[in-house]
């Protein structure tokens, strides 16, 4: 495999809850090292979409291939950052970050080494023995991001991770995420309803329709980094995506 290969292939993904068809025959590919943003209006089934991809939800039809094989969370190195706060309250920062590695039964020395590395990247060295109830919202979100990156995932899934943060904090964490992505080369699928966020972060955007959700448009985002949200090109792309969403 080389950079640019498809790491993920989604084929005919279909999911319904009872009579309600939520995802309708969705197919797309994700290239290795991509930062793919999936945008759609609130309630269109974005979370269902990621949960179905990872088989946290049973699907009606379709499959998701990782490196050409049907996704197997025990085998494929996937990390998922959820919309809800997902730090474990009984573990301190260091233990939270090492959680995924512990689940993967990595040796103690390796866990410590990787935790030390990512804890520095997210700037939480001083808080390694603090518990979640002693941390601010931004710190909690950094812990979750660090926990995902500690496992050096081949594929990182993020479901509106900054949806409930204030703007200033959101911008800061977005920059931190871009920095981590550039350093690690991890493939990211990032779900958001915020078009500006999608244009700022991604190098590819998929626009979803409302329920039953299908893909409305796939578009490349070749804006140079670091991106300026006030630049004419940025605004033009943002408006283009907004137009697509406005049509339903």
């Amino acid at each position, binding site marked *: 495999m080389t950079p640019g290969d498809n790491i993920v292939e989604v084929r005919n993904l279909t999911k319904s809850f009872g009579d309600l068809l939520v995802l309708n025959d969705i197919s797309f590919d994700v290239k290795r090292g991509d930062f793919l943003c999936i945008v759609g209006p609130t309630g269109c089934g974005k979370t269902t979409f990621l949960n179905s991809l990872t088989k*946290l939800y049973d699907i009606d039809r379709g499959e998701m291939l990782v490196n050409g094989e049907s996704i197997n969370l025990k085998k494929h190195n996937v*990390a998922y950052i959820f919309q809800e706060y*997902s730090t474990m309250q009984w573990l301190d920062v260091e233990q939270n970050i090492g959680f995924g590695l512990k689940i993967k039964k990595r040796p103690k020395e390796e866990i410590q080494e990787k935790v030390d590395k990512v804890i520095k990247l997210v700037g939480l060295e001083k808080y390694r023995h603090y518990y979640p109830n002693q941390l601010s919202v931004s710190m909690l979100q950094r812990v979750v991001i660090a926990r995902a990156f500690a496992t050096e995932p081949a594929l990182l899934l993020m479901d509106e991770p900054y949806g409930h943060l204030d703007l200033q904090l959101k911008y800061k964490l977005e920059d931190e995420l871009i920095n981590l992505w550039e350093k690690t080369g991890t493939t990211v699928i990032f779900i958001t309803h915020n078009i500006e966020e999608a244009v700022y972060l991604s190098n590819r955007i998929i626009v979803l329709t409302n329920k039953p959700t299908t893909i409305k448009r796939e578009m490349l985002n070749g804006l140079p980094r670091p991106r300026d949200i006030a630049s004419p090109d940025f605004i033009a792309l943002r408006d283009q995506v907004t137009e697509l969403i406005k049509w339903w």
Partner: protein
Amino acid sequence: MAKKNARDSRIWLSIQKEKKEKRKYVLISCASLLTFLLIWELCTDILKLAPSYAMPSPLKVFRSFVAKLYQTAPDGSTLPVHIGVSVYTALLGFLMGAVIGSPLGILMAWFKTLDRIVKPVFDVLRPIPPIAWIPIMLVVLGIGTASKVAVIFMASFVPCVINAYSGIKQTNEVHIWVGKTFGASRSQLLFRVAIPTAMPMIFTGIKVSLGASWMALVAAELLASSSGLGYMIQIARSVGRADIIIVGMLMIGVISMLFSAALEYLERRFVKGVK
């Protein structure tokens, strides 16, 4: 330097606030205890509101406590022997209840099939008060330690099962998802996610069990026994020794308090990240 940093943090402030609150609590507790003893002394030795054989003063109770440490009258054993018998019986029944009850609650909540098999039986046994088990246990196991251990087991078993069960059921679905996406097996999800989530509830169950065990023990010893604090109280009542009755009651209170303190210490050691 490290100390200076800590001083700057809000954590340091919250620890200081907690310590101050603790000191205040200890002071208030001591003052309330002292006030209680003073009122008691006032009502007995000074105002003589009741005859001393019926309501002895705190000083008389203290003297009886010291004497009972080495005297066997009127019940045939010294106070340490009674305490030893009661603590042994209570701990045995309580530990059996906790060691069987908590894991059973965890497994019932985690494995649906086991839940379906055990829950109907458990739901029938659950509402029966521990004291109601005394007659049948006496008939089946006799007046010795076994019947009392069995009654205490029933008293501690039920809260342990209920709390462990509820604790596991409260596991945050997102935490389970986090584990699953990292490739966790079902046993890893149980031991690394569900049980740690349930730990505060499991400890609550164990604490409730301890109280229930102690109450069941005293009730069992009052009704049928040949030693123990409940037996000592019962004999003292029959010979009209209110001072020994009060010594027995106070011992029950103090021992129960020590057990609770020990459990709270264990809870602080094992349950992390909870305010």
